[in-house]
């Protein structure tokens, strides 16, 4: 009897959860579907859900006409470059805070977090001006640095949280066995730290890929990444739903896939370890 009831409850919850899930995902699904329609079918009344002539013409049109490759390349360089640079700076810092903590470690961590709270618009003009003076307005290098800096607190925090979980007994044991500092770093700590570093990289690539304040304000024709490319569709002449959908699908697909892998790390990463 109890089994039958819980089975019925399970069916009920499954139906409810799937309905809500599909509803929330629907705008993305609709975008993907529209990207395979012709422009006429994309604005058909009543709307066509699945019974349309599937076509790839929008993808080839976007790829041919709009230099999509260059925007994609800019996104890859900016997201990848800022993340790698951030990791290079953050690993030693997080490492030393986790393994050689001092009285000030907590204050430094909280101070780093506080720099993340600085509203971008409050420093928009100074950064804009500095970019002009350094001749790096509309350049990838400027965005690599800026996105590295805005995400650095998150990178340090995530790495610190991971490194903290490496038990120090293991280090002591290695030292007792006569491991030198170099051996300790290379053979004991690094293998244990790699999963943490990998998920930090993943989350930060996502954040940098989607960043849409600095990328919109500091780029024009040369260094614009996909965020700015998509924004250019907001002009009236860009009202081609099927092509907009194809461009959008290509811009979000890689990050959707990366994101689904990183959903666990997302929680501790974005709450600075306050929720695990």
């Amino acid at each position, binding site marked *: 009897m109890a089994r039958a009831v*819980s089975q019925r409850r*399970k069916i009920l919850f*499954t139906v409810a*959860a799937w309905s*809500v*899930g599909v509803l*929330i*995902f629907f*705008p*993305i699904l*609709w975008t993907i579907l529209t990207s395979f329609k012709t422009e006429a079918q994309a*604005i058909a009344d009543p*709307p066509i859900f699945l019974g349309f002539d599937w076509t790839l013409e929008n993808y080839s049109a976007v790829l041919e006409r709009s230099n999509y490759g260059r925007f994609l390349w800019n996104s890859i360089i900016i997201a990848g470059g800022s993340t790698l640079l951030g990791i290079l700076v953050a690993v*030693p810092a997080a490492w*030393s*805070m986790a*393994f*050689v903590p*001092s009285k000030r470690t907590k204050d*430094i*961590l*909280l101070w*780093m*977090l506080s*720099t993340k*709270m*600085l*509203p*971008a*618009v*409050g*420093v*928009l*003009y*100074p*950064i804009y001006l500095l970019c002009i003076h350094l001749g790096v307005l509309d350049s990838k290098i400027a965005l690599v640095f800026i996105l590295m*800096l805005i995400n650095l607190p998150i990178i*340090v925090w995530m790495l610190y949280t991971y490194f903290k979980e490496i038990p120090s007994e293991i280090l002591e044991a290695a030292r007792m066995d006569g491991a030198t500092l170099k051996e300790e770093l290379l053979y004991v700590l690094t293998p244990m730290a790699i999963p943490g570093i990998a998920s930090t990289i993943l989350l930060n690539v996502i954040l940098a890929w*989607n960043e*849409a304040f600095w990328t*919109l*304000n500091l780029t024009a024709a040369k260094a614009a990444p996909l*965020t700015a490319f*998509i*924004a250019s569709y*907001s002009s009236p002449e860009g*009202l081609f*739903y099927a092509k*907009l*959908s194809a461009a959008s699908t290509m*811009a*979000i697909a890689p*990050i*959707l896939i990366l994101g*689904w892998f990183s959903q666990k790390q997302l*929680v501790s990463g*974005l*709450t600075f*370890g306050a*929720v695990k």
Partner: protein
Amino acid sequence: MATHHSRSAARLMMAPAVVLLLGWMLVPLTMTLYFSFKKYLPLRGGDLGWVGFDNYVRFVSSSAFWPSVLTTLTIVGGVLVITVVFGVLLAILLNQPMWGQGFVRILVIAPFFVMPTVSALVWKNMFMDPNYGLLAHLWEFFGAQPVEWLSQASLQSIVMIVSWQWLPFATLILLTAIQSLDSEQLEAAEMDGAPALMRFAFITLPHLGRAIAVVLLIQTIFLLSIFAEIFVTTGGAFGTKTLTYLIFQRVLESQNVGLGSAGGVYAIILANIVAIFLMRIVGKNLDK
């Protein structure tokens, strides 16, 4: 067993990150403060000298200021209420026994990974367009007059778009928190005959308190500076000009740097008030 030697090595390893962040904070901040006390119009005469607190007074007394504060509060408040209420409900739903839980999670979390310009444009064109949008078709299907969402109900539309983006974040964090709830406690309460609503109000909700606080604070920080969603939908028209957008327009569109910088200082102060509360919660967690 930190020796003196390893301490100085640790300091050296920390130095690049600390120096970079210090520079990132201090240099632009000092410049913003400096400009905020000047009449500075790069395209119309450049630096026209010191003006004291003039910019601060003028920014607050301009006719656009209070509406922008109200707009900001409406958007932030609206999104927070929607994401937390539905986030709690969704987290509870997703925590129930069901088939394909992992897959539903993937569907629900997806909007968070969509870049802001894409979600804003997809909603604007394919859903909220009064002629071709899906919502217009839906309205017509029920015999209603299609709504011109982004001009007639502009604020509600923005709140909806941004809520769609942030609901996954709230849900995911609250779900993580719910999963750490001791289920024995709930079962004991159920055996004692406590109805579901009471169990929710006296066990689940208090347990979620801290996670909700974290969601509220982190989202507030991000929501105070939403930009792309307004930039590509209304461009600040139809009463959707937030404080962030107003400052952006002053600084880059009308190139009144002094005035915009004073606005920037206000935005920084506002963000810091929220930040203090967030830091307390995070700081407490560090001691554990």
